[in-house]
């Protein structure tokens, strides 16, 4: 029983780590309907920039974080000016293709600026197993993942306040609901896009910090986006709580499957099981657990 609890808790924690990546996707999709293929690369780019500021320029952690946030905001502005502005009213697939291009550009830029080596990221986040849990309950939980769960909770509270209580948040929701109506009441689509890509960039930085602390900052970090996809399918592309709950369901599901079903089918089913679980949900709720139901009048 202890082992089952351990696997479940580990799954929940791992799921929260996936949710941190999924959140970035949700923010952009919610406000603009764009599925941002470059979200994983944005997490990589943010983490590379942070480590670069700390290692290459000797910045203290707090200054490096502020500097990286500034870079991500600048990046959002450039993306809006160079890419999105020219693609207004294009088909979603065109915007999606543009973000694929963006992923390659950012990956190349990160390589040119900061190199391809594995970089250690240590900003003081506790690492390793929680000794207290291990010694008291014989349960293995990573301190980093507990920290990530707390960070995700804080992030969700912050985003909820931002969306519900602030003027910009309300404008974002208006744009998400209806572009044309939002434009007609004087909301600038361009400004909203810069804001939403900036917030998404900051979320990417948080995800990059967590994953970078876990495995070192390296280019495989961009592949964590693949872990976020089933979370999005399950939780819905437009729901912040959906990203969190979806992540936890995926995390627990894949860990239990790997541990209890793996030995019977040769193992390594974590990756595909997550997608299978998400697809099973799709059969019953095509919009995901918390996604908005799409009603088309014909």
């Amino acid at each position, binding site marked *: 029983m202890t082992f089952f609890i351990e696997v479940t808790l580990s799954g929940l924690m791992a799921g929260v780590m996936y949710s941190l990546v999924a959140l970035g996707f949700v923010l952009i999709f919610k406000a603009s309907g764009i599925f941002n293929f470059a979200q994983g690369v944005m997490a990589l780019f943010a983490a590379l920039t942070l480590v670069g500021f700390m290692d290459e320029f000797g910045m203290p952690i707090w200054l490096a974080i502020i500097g990286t946030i500034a870079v991500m905001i600048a990046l959002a502005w450039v993306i809006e000016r160079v890419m999105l502005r020219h693609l207004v009213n294009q088909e979603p697939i065109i915007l999606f293709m543009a973000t694929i291009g963006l992923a390659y550009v950012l*990956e190349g830029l990160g390589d040119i600026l900061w190199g391809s080596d594995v970089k250690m990221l240590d900003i003081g986040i506790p690492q390793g197993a929680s000794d207290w849990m291990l010694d008291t309950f014989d349960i293995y939980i990573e301190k980093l993942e507990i920290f990530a769960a707390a960070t995700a909770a804080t992030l969700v509270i912050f985003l909820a306040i931002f969306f519900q209580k602030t003027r910009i948040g309300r404008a974002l929701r208006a744009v998400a609901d209806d572009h044309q109506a939002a434009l007609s009441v004087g909301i600038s689509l361009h400004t909203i896009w810069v804001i939403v890509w900036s917030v998404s960039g900051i979320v990417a930085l948080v995800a990059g910090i967590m994953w970078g602390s876990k495995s*070192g900052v390296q*280019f*495989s970090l961009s*592949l*964590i986006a693949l872990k976020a996809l089933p979370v999005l399918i399950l939780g819905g592309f437009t729901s912040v709580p959906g990203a969190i709950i979806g992540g936890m369901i995926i995390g627990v599901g894949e860990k239990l499957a790997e*541990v209890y079903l793996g030995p019977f089918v040769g193992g390594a089913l974590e990756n595909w099981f997550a997608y299978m679980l998400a697809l099973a949900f799709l059969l019953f709720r095509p919009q995901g657990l918390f996604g908005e139901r799409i009603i088309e009048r014909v």
Partner: protein
Amino acid sequence: MKSITKTLVAALLAVPLLGGTVSAYELTIPTLDYRTGPYAPNGIPFANGFSDYLTMLNERDGGINDTKINLVPCETAYNTKRGVECYENTKGQGDSGALVYQPLSTGITYQLIPKSSVDRIPIFSMGYGRTSAANGKVFPWVFNFPATYWSQATVFVQYIADKEGGMDKLKGKKIALVYHNSAYGKEPIRTLESAAAKFGFELMLLPVDHPGQEQKATWLQIRKERPDWVMMWGWGVMNQVAIKEAASIRFPMDHFIGVWWSGSENDVIPAGDKADGYLSGAFHQPGDNFPAHDDIKKHVYDKGKGHGERDRIGEVLYNRGLVAAMWTSEAVRKAMEIHGTNKIKGVHLRDGFEALDVDEARLKELGLPNFTIPVKITCDNHEGPGKVALQQWDAKAKKWSIVSKFYDPLRDITGPLIAEDSAQYAKENNVVPRICN
């Protein structure tokens, strides 16, 4: 006007000279590098070591026997499809055509094996690729010396037995294999299954999907089953995550052994002090304290022609690339000697590889004394010595050191497996094994 005429005449006179330089016979060696993508941190130091050594030969000696080496880099991103494209794009380059390929990927190697015999270009898959290619009778164009994954697996078993107090002490032990769920990662399974049957240990198989960023379920199973030893066949981020996870569940690092592709600085540094004592296979020394390294610094880096950073010369994967280049250049030298010409092609180089004999005396001449094991290749044995040692990470000193003898492989286990697998390949591909005298 006069000066313009003079200049034009001089330029016209110079054309044949320039043409002569351009058309000088060069030894074309494509390098299938991966400096981008998720495996770049491992691909870059290998590519740097390989290219730096051959550049050093060009700068110091004017190439090999005064014939310049023409390195043709091609980026594969560790992607099999791109690797095959690189092969097709580069195989006809230069007067010599591609002399040899070093794919640095088991997946790419598997795809190139059938092509190499048609195009008559040798493949040097140094310590990776298809293990049964060690049988030169069936695979005349493939060389995988100085040791194969199967030899390495049997060496790990012997090392474990030594630590446990003898081969008979393996009975009842539990050994886990955490492996990259790919052709590469699956290579040692049959060998370890044979060894488990022979010595009576229990083998736990734990695959990890690409890229291996999340391995919690794997390590929870290890925590539950508590194997006595863990072996790992990993690559890229999988290595770093596994070492960190092992440390987190308090698995003893000196009972955790990685394949030689899981034992570089990149793999252990992210785990910090907790990686102290971690072991991995090795067939060459780490470090830059060899005369050949001094020559690389002097003739390559001092001239601004280095492919990487000067302070990373001597890292494990850098030296792996260097040793691959050294054996390749020695095979070129041997091919020139056998065929009495410097204008060799792939078909000649194959003969050079097959007659390769780099002993300790030759290593000393090359500025690499005691750097690696002596290698002698024959018509039927393309694996060579098959000897492997273990190296250990010292987290405080931040360096690897060889901590065991060089073990001979258990050929009574690997031999029948190689014979069986190569016979199967020969049957499936209608290959008639050649006769070696």
